[in-house]
Each structure stands twice: as structure tokens, then as C-alpha cells.
């Protein structure tokens, strides 16, 4: 090249090119230094940002354990639900975001903001559920607009579902977000802030079994928040299955029988104390709680004068009325002072003194009455006289032997004890002695006496089974995922009374007559082909003035109307099921309560008969 130099290649120009090349190289050096700055000095910072850009750690909520009735029928289940949640670290400015989201979900932005604030206590890795259980249409709308909603995602969560609606709601219980206090208690160890846990009922009692264990997933998302890859780090473990002693068919029949009326129904297996039906009405919708109850909904339930949240089966204390007469009859026979043949004259009332007269419900009187008739026709006068004869202590003793006046050890507790008064109690409570007049009204289950529906059912079962009061059971067993039984109930006898069999027999025959014989107070509730035994009761809420004619119940204000009661066991000869029905302010036991028991027994035993009649086993779905 030197031999043939280009004309422009002069030393001056060459220097110019060298300078130019060096300038270019210098600029490239700046680029290289910047790259070194970003990629070597900044690598940790940027990798950290990059992780945050693309990875979300989300917990996978486990499906809560299902509950089944005694026949394996699904009572409480879970269904997938769509929840609109927010990821705090990805949410920028909330106001425009919530405004946009609010129009898509059709709620007020204030509601979203309120939820956001209220959920701030949740741990950082948890998404904040802003709107729970939205329908598919809303979910799709939100997903469609995902680009405009940074930090908002749709989560699929298992949500408690209730195929039987509010049936047995008080037994099952409801869910709620775990409180700070509960978080620190041993009952809820393993739960984390934000979890839904059992608050009442079986949901609470078996929470540890039902809860399951949350899983975790790592989601790689692209810039639009679209999932690109999902890595499950830990699968969620569904909760254990809880098998109840409840009979779903009977439960439903009982719910329907009581309908809109306030009251309680309990059905017990006579030989084990297993609860077959557990109804407290009015009820509440547990589904409201499952998705997180709103404060106004909660307020409405609390303020409802009909107290839908109260568990009447365990906590409702009612005068037993005439259903208490079996207790008095048994006490009388055991005392030896009264035999089944002992008779008294009923003239429609009994005078204790000049000023105190106690009326029989039948104004014109029953005439000559023995124990059988007295129970069958519920003659008050016979019991007044027998009660006076044997005294309150014997009555109270018999009541206690039948499980009254004490909690029965119901699995999740919260029971009221009821009240069986005696002299000692009176002295302690009022500092006064016991009066005969109080014995008289105690003999027909009025006065101080209070019982819970559960106690009445247990009492009836004890009469039916020979005197054993069983601790009530509602769960027969709990099964884990592998199908192993991890918990099972043990029937426990609270009282094994050695009643003289002939005394029990006399009372049982009379109870049978209540249904089966003409003149029995519940003979209109007979079931063809199923002889059973029972006793009606009508408990006075307030004492109407003596000289008042019992007014037509339609004219008495609701809150002053009598409670209607009925207890029964069936079948009469080989008892299986004991039932107690209480209809608050329902009027008379024979008109209001007995037909309900009849509906239940028809359902329960009618089904049994149908199943027995078919040789080949029915498909298991047939209930």
C-alpha cells in the first residue's frame, strides 16, 4: 500500500482518523463501563427486581373437610368460587384502580377501599380478597380487563357449600376469619392470619380436623399478570371427613315440619345417644359466613328479635309442661305410695286451701282417674294430688335420674343446665321454704322447672331404653384422606338408673295410649302400622288470670301464647328413636307439636320400611 498510496492518506489526515477512532473507542468504553455498572455492581439489585417482576408466591387454600350424614350422604361440601383479590406489592395507585374495578364488579369503590384497609393485617404474602364469590360473568369481565387492573387477580378458592341450605345450621356451625386471640390459642395452632376457621358448632369443635393444610404455589407471570407457568411447591391437603350421626332425611323432615315457626326438634337414637336430627329455628344461612359475613348482615342477625343465632336445642330453656308428668309418675311409683291402680277424682280443679285452687286443663273434669288415664288424657288433678303425696324431693330426684337439671355433655358444650328445683335450691335461691303450691305446679311441669329440648329427648330415650341416659353424640367418626379413622365416638352412659321394670312398663304403656287409644291427647297423630308412644305438653308462658276463660289463642299476643311440646319414642314395642319437639308459642302440644313428630316418624320409619321391602339394595343415591 505504501507503494501505491491513496491520495487522501496524508499524515495530517491519518492523525485525524486516529483521533476519530479513539473518540469512537472512548464512547464504546463508556458503554462498557455502564454495562459493568449495571451487570456487575447492580446485578443483585436488578435480579431482585426481576424476581419481583415475574414471581408471585400464593398460598393454595385447602378444601375444608366435608361432612356426611350417617348414611354417607354429603351434608357439607366445598365448591370452587371466584374471588377478586389484590396483590399489595403490585397495586399502584388505588383510587383509579378501585374506581375501574368497582364498575366491573358493580360494587362501590368505598367498599373496596374499606376491605383493603380492613385486610391490611394479613401477612405480606397473602393476597387480599376484595370481593368474594363473584359469578362467572363478573370474573370474566375482570379477567378481560386484567391489563388495566395491575395487582388485581382472580383466585379460585374452595368455598363451603351447603347442599341442605340452613338445615342443622346450629349443629354444623359457621365459619369466620380467625381472630387475633384465636391465632394465639392452641385450638387453632397451625392456622394463619386471614384463615377462615370454625367459629361455632362442629366447624369449631373439629376445626383441627376439618382445616386441612394450605399448599403453596409459585406463579411466573408476564407483564400483564397472565400466568405463564405455575409451579406447585406444596399441594394443599384437604381436611378430614367428618361423619355425623345425623340422618339427613329425618333432619329435613324435621326442618320442614317446624317450618317458619320458632322452636327446636331433637331426635336421639334410644340406645346410644346418637343425635339423628337437630333443629333450631329460626335458622341462619351459614353460606353468608363462609364467604365472610358483612357487618350489616351480622348486625341484622344479632338484632333479629327471633334470635336466629341462638341454639335452642342446647340453650333454649322451657317449662316442660305435661311432658314432665312421666317423671312424676315414675317418682310416684318408685316411692311405693302410689301404684298404677291408685285413683283420684278429677272434678276439673283441686282446692289446696280456701284461696288456692288449681285447675285441670279439662274444665268439666276427668272423673275417676288412674295413672294410665292420667297420662293418656294428661289429667292435671291426678298429678296435683300425687305430687302433693310424694313431695318435691322425690320428684326432683326422679328428674335428675332421667338426666334433667344438668348439662348432658354435648360434644361442643354451651348447654344450659335447665332447672330442677327442690327445697335446698329454694332456700339457697330465695332464702324461703318450699310451699305445697309449688309442688302442685311442679307436678305438671310448671313453676320453676326448666328443661332444654335436648334434655327432654334424652329423658324420653331413657324411659324407652330402661333408664339409661346417654351422653349425646353427633359425630360417629372422622376419616383422614387415606380413609383411616382418626377419631371415633364412644357412647357413654351418664346415668344408668335401676328403675323397677314394671314401673317403667306402666309409664310406657300409658305413653303408648296417648297415641294409640281414643281419648289420648295425641291420638290424632297416630301412624298406621307404626305404634309409638309419646306425651303432649303445653307450657304456660304467663299465668292467665284464674277466672279468665282460656281465650282463643288467636287473640292472645304471640309472646303470651303457650309453648307447644311433644316427646315421643318409636316404635312402641322395640324403641329406636326418641324425639322432642318444642314449638315456641305454638299453642297446644297435641295440635301443634305432635303432628310434627308424626311427620318425622313417618319419614324415618316409612323409609326404613320401604328399604326393607325391596330385596335388592337400592342405588346408594336413593334417600
Amino acid at each position, binding site marked *: 500500500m505504501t507503494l501505491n498510496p491513496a491520495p*487522501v492518506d496524508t499524515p495530517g489526515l491519518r492523525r485525524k482518523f486516529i483521533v*476519530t477512532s479513539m473518540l469512537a*473507542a472512548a*464512547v*464504546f468504553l463508556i*458503554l462498557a463501563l455502564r*454495562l459493568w455498572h449495571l451487570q456487575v455492581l447492580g*446485578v443483585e439489585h*436488578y435480579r431482585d427486581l426481576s424476581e419481583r417482576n415475574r414471581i408471585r408466591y400464593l398460598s393454595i387454600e385447602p378444601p375444608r373437610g366435608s361432612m356426611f350424614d350417617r348414611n354417607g350422604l354429603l351434608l357439607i361440601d366445598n365448591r370452587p368460587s371466584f374471588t377478586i383479590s389484590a396483590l399489595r406489592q403490585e397495586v399502584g395507585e388505588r383510587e383509579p384502580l378501585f374506581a375501574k374495578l368497582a364498575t366491573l364488579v358493580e360494587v362501590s369503590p368505598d367498599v373496596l377501599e374499606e376491605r383493603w384497609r380492613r385486610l391490611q393485617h394479613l401477612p405480606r404474602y397473602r393476597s387480599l380478597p376484595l370481593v368474594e364469590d363473584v359469578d362467572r360473568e363478573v370474573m370474566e369481565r375482570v379477567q378481560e380487563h386484567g391489563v388495566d387492573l395491575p395487582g388485581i387477580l382472580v383466585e379460585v378458592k374452595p368455598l363451603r357449600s351447603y347442599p341442605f341450605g340452613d338445615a342443622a345450621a346450629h349443629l354444623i356451625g359457621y365459619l369466620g376469619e380467625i381472630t387475633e386471640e384465636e391465632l394465639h390459642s392452641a385450638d387453632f395452632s397451625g392456622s394463619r392470619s386471614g384463615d377462615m376457621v370454625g367459629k361455632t358448632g362442629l366447624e369449631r369443635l373439629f376445626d383441627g380436623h376439618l382445616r386441612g393444610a394450605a399448599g403453596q404455589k409459585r406463579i411466573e407471570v408476564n407483564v400483564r399478570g397472565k400466568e*405463564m407457568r405455575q409451579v406447585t411447591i406444596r399441594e394443599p391437603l384437604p381436611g378430614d371427613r367428618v361423619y355425623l350421626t345425623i340422618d339427613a332425611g329425618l333432619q329435613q323432615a324435621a326442618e320442614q315440619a317446624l317450618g317458619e315457626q320458632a322452636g327446636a326438634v331433637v331426635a336421639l337414637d334410644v340406645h346410644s345417644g346418637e343425635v339423628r336430627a337437630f333443629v333450631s329455628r329460626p335458622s341462619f344461612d351459614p353460606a353468608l359466613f363462609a364467604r365472610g359475613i358483612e357487618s350489616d348482615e351480622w348486625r341484622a342477625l344479632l338484632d333479629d328479635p327471633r334470635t336466629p343465632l341462638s341454639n335452642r336445642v342446647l340453650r333454649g330453656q322451657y317449662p316442660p309442661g305435661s311432658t314432665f308428668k312421666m317423671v312424676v309418675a315414675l317418682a310416684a311409683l318408685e316411692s311405693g305410695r302410689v301404684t298404677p291402680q291408685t285413683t283420684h277424682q278429677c272434678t276439673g280443679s283441686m282446692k289446696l286451701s280456701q284461696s288456692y285452687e288449681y285447675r285441670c286443663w279439662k274444665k268439666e273434669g276427668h272423673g275417676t282417674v288412674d295413672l294410665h288415664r292420667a297420662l293418656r288424657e294428661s289429667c292435671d288433678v291426678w298429678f296435683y294430688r300425687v305430687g302433693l303425696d310424694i313431695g318435691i324431693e322425690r320428684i326432683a330426684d326422679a328428674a335428675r335420674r332421667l338426666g334433667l337439671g344438668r348439662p348432658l355433655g354435648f360434644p361442643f358444650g354451651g348447654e344450659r343446665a335447665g332447672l330442677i328445683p327442690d327445697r335446698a335450691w329454694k332456700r339457697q335461691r330465695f332464702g324461703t321454704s318450699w310451699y305445697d303450691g309449688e309442688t302442685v305446679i311442679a307436678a305438671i311441669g310448671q313453676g320453676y322447672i326448666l328443661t332444654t329440648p335436648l334434655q327432654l329427648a334424652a329423658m324420653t330415650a331413657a324411659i324407652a331404653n330402661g333408664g339409661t341416659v346417654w351422653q349425646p353424640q353427633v359425630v360417629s367418626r372422622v376419616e383422614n384422606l387415606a380413609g383411616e379413622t382418626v377419631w371415633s365416638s364412644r357412647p357413654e352412659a351418664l346415668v344408668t338408673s335401676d328403675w323397677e321394670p314394671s314401673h317403667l312398663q306402666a309409664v310406657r304403656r300409658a305413653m303408648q295410649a296417648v297415641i294409640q287409644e281414643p281419648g289420648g291427647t295425641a291420638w290424632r297423630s297416630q301412624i298406621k302400622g307404626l305404634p309409638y308412644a309419646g306425651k303432649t305438653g303445653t307450657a304456660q308462658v304467663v299465668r292467665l288470670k284464674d277466672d279468665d276463660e282460656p281465650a282463643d289463642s288467636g287473640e292472645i299476643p304471640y309472646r303470651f301464647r303457650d309453648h307447644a311440646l311433644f316427646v315421643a319414642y318409636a316404635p312402641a314395642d322395640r324403641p329406636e328413636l326418641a324425639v322432642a319437639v318444642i314449638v315456641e308459642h305454638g299453642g297446644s302440644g297435641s295440635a301443634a307439636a305432635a303432628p310434627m313428630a308424626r311427620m318425622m316418624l313417618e319419614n324415618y320409619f316409612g323409609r326404613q320400611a320401604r328399604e326393607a321391602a325391596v330385596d335388592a339394595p337400592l342405588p346408594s343415591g336413593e334417600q
Partner: protein
Amino acid sequence: MFDRRLVTHFDWSYLLLVVLVATIGIVNLYSATSSWTSAPPPVYLKQIYWLGFGLLLVAVMALFDYRHLEYFGFPLYLVNVLLLLAVLLVGKTSMGATRWISFAGFNVQPSELMKIIMIIALARYFSERGHLHGFSLRELLIPGLILGVPALLIMKQPDLGTALLVLFIGASMALFCGIRRSALIVLGLSAFGAAVGGWFLLHDYQKRRIMTFLNPENDPLGAGYHIIQSKIAVGSGGLSGLGFMQGTQSQLSFLPERHTDFAFSVFAEEWGLLGCLLLLALYLLIVLWGLHIALRASDRFGMFLALGVSAMLFWHIVVNLGMVIGLLPVVGVPLPLFSYGGTSMITTMAGIGLLLNVSMRRFMF
């Protein structure tokens, strides 16, 4: 007409260097767009077609004697200015800017063409009017007009990136040619004044880009998004990179425009500082080699031609990389041979063709 010496003097190694960088670019595009499910053919394949077309263009641009261009320089320039005017009048609008006109079934982007034509026109001008003491202000009037008119027309489209590049290319050539110190000072001051005044001529989105460049965190999901995401991608590459196809930011689409203007971010994330330095060295080699060709050119026209093309490549590379690594505002300049796109490939290969043309005719008078 055909001279055997053309083959022997043809700078095969330079072409090889260019093809090497383009190949790396295509491999990178393959990774950048692998998660796409768009209709075939895939982007990297289309880029291969463009490269093939580019190589044909190199052959075309190298075959004729560049010295013929001396006579066509000004007419070509005038036609191009008219085309730019036509764009403003009848151009096709896409994404808020009007840059294209349809011409016999083809979409032509006169602003891209202007880069090459400008080089030819200025090479013609400066080759004749070299000055020992450099240009005075008055003497700079004509090259200033040659440069300024199309730059303004392009800025009007609006296409700030291309306008600036055209200005940079022209200014580089003028500076090389020589400018008097007094003129430089006046030009520097007036450039500053123009920058301040020009601020008010800028479109809102252009202002926003510059503002966000100065402080990207102000608007992380808006205008600052590109810069932040690009820096994250580049930075997380580290020393040795995350590996081919392993760059999460690009694979998960956090990186915007990762197949065009931000293709280098993908490369940086996956190949790390070591890969980047290698690529940077290759680009520097392309530029310095171009300057070397200019130095060895057989005449002043060829020298300025090669110098202009080198400047064009240099500024494209520097502005793009500067933007991607957060040193310069986002102005939408593609990285030659690396960013996907036929336009960029054609401009680059036309320039390369001219360089090779000058190179292979350095011994011919």
C-alpha cells in the same frame, strides 16, 4: 466492465464480520420471540430473509463504481426531500406518526433513505470544499441547509430519533471536515439555544420521554416503563448471563419491544457482561474498520462516503445501546443488524455495501 480485481479486492472479512453480528442478532431474536404464538413465519426467520435481501443489496451497492454517485448526489437528495414532503402530505399514519408512503406497491420510508442520501450529498459537498482552516460560519450555511431541511421535515413526522441521527451523521462529517473554533463556539451556543427553544416544539410524548429518562421512577408503569424494565433485564444478566433462552424478563414479556429497539436487553440478560463486551467489541470493529476504509479511500468523495457510513453505524449503535442501558432517553433507534426490521436492515446493508464499494476500489483511479 467487470474487473477481476474487484473480487480479489473485495473485503470478504468485513462482510463476514457483518454477517457474524447479524447471525448473533438472529439467534437473539429467536430467543426473544420464542414465547410468541403469532402466526408464522416466526420473527427470526423473517429476519433471515431480510438478511438475505440485505446481502443482495450489498452486492448491488458494491457492484457499480461509487464515483458515479458523485454526479447523482444532489439530484437524489432533491428527490428525497420531495419524498419527505410527500410523506407529510400523503403519508401513511401508523402509531401516531406518519413515516411511510406507498410507491408502486411498496411502502417506502423516505426518512430512512435520507440517511444514506444525506451521506452521499454531504460527501459530494465536503469532498469539493475541503478547507485547511476549517469552515467558517458563513461557509457552513449551505451544508447546514442540506442537513437542516430534511432534518426538520423528519422531525415534523414526527420521528425525533431519525431526525437526530441524520443531524448527528451530518455534524460528524462536518466536524471531520473541519470547523473553525469561533464557528464551533457559536454553533455550540446556538445548539444550546435551539435545545431550549426546541423543547417547546417537541411533542408531548417526546417531552415525556426525555423527562422520564431523567427520572424514570416517576412513572414506572407509564413512560418510564421501558427504561426500568430494560435496566432490570440488562442488570439481572450479571457477569455471565442467565443463559440462552433463560432470560426471564424477556421470556415473560416484561421487556417491551424486545425484538426491535430493545433486542440488546434480551441479549444482555441471557449472555451477561461477557457476551455484551464481545458484541460491543464486534460493533467497535465494524465502526473502526469503516473508518479505516475511509482513510484508505482512493479519493475524498470515497473517504467522506465511508466516513459518513461509519458515522451512521456508530450513532445507531451508540444511541440504541445508550437508550437500552439507561444512558440516553428512549428515542426509538434500532440497533443495526440486531433489531428486527427490514427498514433497518436495508439502511444498514446499503451503508455496508457503500463501504465495501469504497474499499474494493481503493486502488483504482
